[in-house]
């Protein structure tokens, strides 16, 4: 056998091995349709590539905040209600309500805690308002996010939030998040920690 033929054999064997490794073993379950995947996929990552079409401003958001009853739990202006406070404290007013667990205090507000505004969009879209989760339209979610960003001093009043502008918002913690080291089997919780 010539060395060229041998090489060909090695390549063929290698390719067939690769194909075998990649093909399903059990063949149980079915392939979802693209429509099914699109309907189910409500995960919005930091680069916002899954964000749907739509847009909203802080002014529109203020109206949605009232219309959808957000104020009944979060307080008239997004703070001083029984649900977690959404607006940065002015440092003077003290909430009459105890901080809910997980207690994120005024300096580390849940609405602007994440380094990306996509977290807020993802959160409101999937989980608000309480008992009517999943009913908000994309425009309403964009508007609510704009409302909260504006009232926390992150964006200007007239800024339009949409699939392009939202991931670009420079959040206060953009440069202040450290993710855990890459996880490997058998690694301790934190090297050097007692």
């Amino acid at each position, binding site marked *: 056998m010539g060395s060229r033929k041998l090489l060909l054999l090695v390549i063929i064997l290698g390719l067939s091995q690769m194909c075998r490794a*990649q093909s*399903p*073993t*059990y063949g*149980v*379950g*079915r*392939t*979802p349709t693209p429509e*099914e*995947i699109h309907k*189910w*996929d*409500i*995960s*919005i*990552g*930091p680069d916002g590539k899954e964000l749907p079409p739509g847009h909203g401003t802080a002014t529109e958001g203020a109206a949605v905040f009232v219309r959808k009853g957000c104020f009944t*739990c979060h307080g008239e202006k997004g703070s001083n209600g*029984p*649900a977690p406070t959404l607006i940065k404290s002015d440092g003077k007013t003290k909430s009459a309500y105890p901080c*809910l*667990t*997980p207690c*994120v205090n005024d300096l580390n507000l*849940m609405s602007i*805690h*994440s*380094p*990306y505004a*996509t*977290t807020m969009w*993802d*959160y409101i879209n*999937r*989980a608000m308002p*309480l*008992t009517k*989760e*999943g009913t908000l339209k994309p425009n309403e979610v964009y508007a609510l996010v704009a409302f909260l960003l504006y009232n926390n001093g992150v964006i200007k009043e007239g800024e339009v939030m949409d699939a392009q502008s939202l991931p670009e918002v420079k959040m206060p*913690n953009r440069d*202040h*998040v*450290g*993710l*855990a*080291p*890459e*996880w*490997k*089997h*058998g*690694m*301790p*919780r*934190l090297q*050097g*920690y*007692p």
Partner: protein
Amino acid sequence: MSSEGSGRRKFLRDSAALIGLAAGVVPAADAQQMSHAEAPPKDNKECKDNKDLIAYGERSRYVKSVRIPVMERMSPDDFGMTFHVLSPLQDSVGIITASSLHYVATHRGSYVPDINPEEHRLMIHGMVDRPLIFTVEELKRLPYVTRTHFLECSGNRAKATHKTVQQTHGMTSCSEWTGVPLSLLLKEAGVQSGASFIVAEGAETVKGATSIPLSKALDDCLVCYGQNGEAVRPQHGFPLRLIVPGYEGIHNVKYLRRIKLVEKHYMTYNDYGHLAADSRVAALNRQVGPKSIITFPSGEQKLPGPGFYEITGLAWSGSGAIRSVDISLDGGQNWTSAELRSPAYPMAHTRFGFHWTWDGKECVIMSRSTDELGTVQPSRAEIAKYWEKPNDADLQIRGLDNSIFPWRVASDGSVHNGLA
């Protein structure tokens, strides 16, 4: 039916005759003796409910052990929501927590969904060659494993105001979990290069979702439909729950409906509370460190007097199996090995015991576990030193608190929180 029935009756009749024969050989004098067995007391009532006896068993009405809500936020709360409830560790025996007594922590107090398993689906998509959707029945056709694993909520943090071990440590429990290895499902879908995280999502109202490293997902995670010999309970994620062994409770997504493979940490619903400026804190918020707690004698229990007692408790670690447990009877100055009284499974509660003869003097008792990596459960002083903070009541322990916990046994036998 009739021939079978009469056959069975004949067997019983013949057996009775044999027993009669046997009785016949007993000396006559014995026949006049009083019964050796104790007659039932007159007020002895039998458990009457045959429904329970046959269909689904109940515990004795004399056993009163129950869960309680966390002190810091009552359930139901202002919104009518159930928040976190604590497992009665003071009554625990062995290493398995009865599903009815397993601690419960919910996504921001969401209601427990009433899911019809026939309508439930699990979808795997994102950075895979073949997106897949499974019914629960289809998942049950696949090869499965059964493993024992603890769960623990990141809020399982002892405070000086807590009185009992249920309050100090009740947000951990341990079950036998049965399900399909997630690695099998991911291989079936074909993981694409560049994927580094999964986003796991539940089907409850808020669709709680968490980012988990793909390396962990491919290592030992399980998509479970079984818990402690039966279907996973609704409180714990029926019909499917993702078990992420050794990771903080919030990663173990209930009502699992979707797994999306992505290229980076997605900072989604359940993640935001764990985002930290310091990557060391993020690591401490992920994998549970070696931990242990004495469940007897523990807070608000009372020793009747000096004498022999068996100190017992639970030890666990998110990094593997428990290798050993030590006991101190003098507030942490001297340590002696305890015995492991159960199998030490990886990432599972492990039961320890220690022979103790109490002299009736006040003392502070503690347990300390070491896991298979050799990591030793730290004291508060060691944690304070690591963060270069004073070891006082204001010390904030970052990540899940796995510090050594003291019980103070007073000279009257009463047991108290040693942090108080």
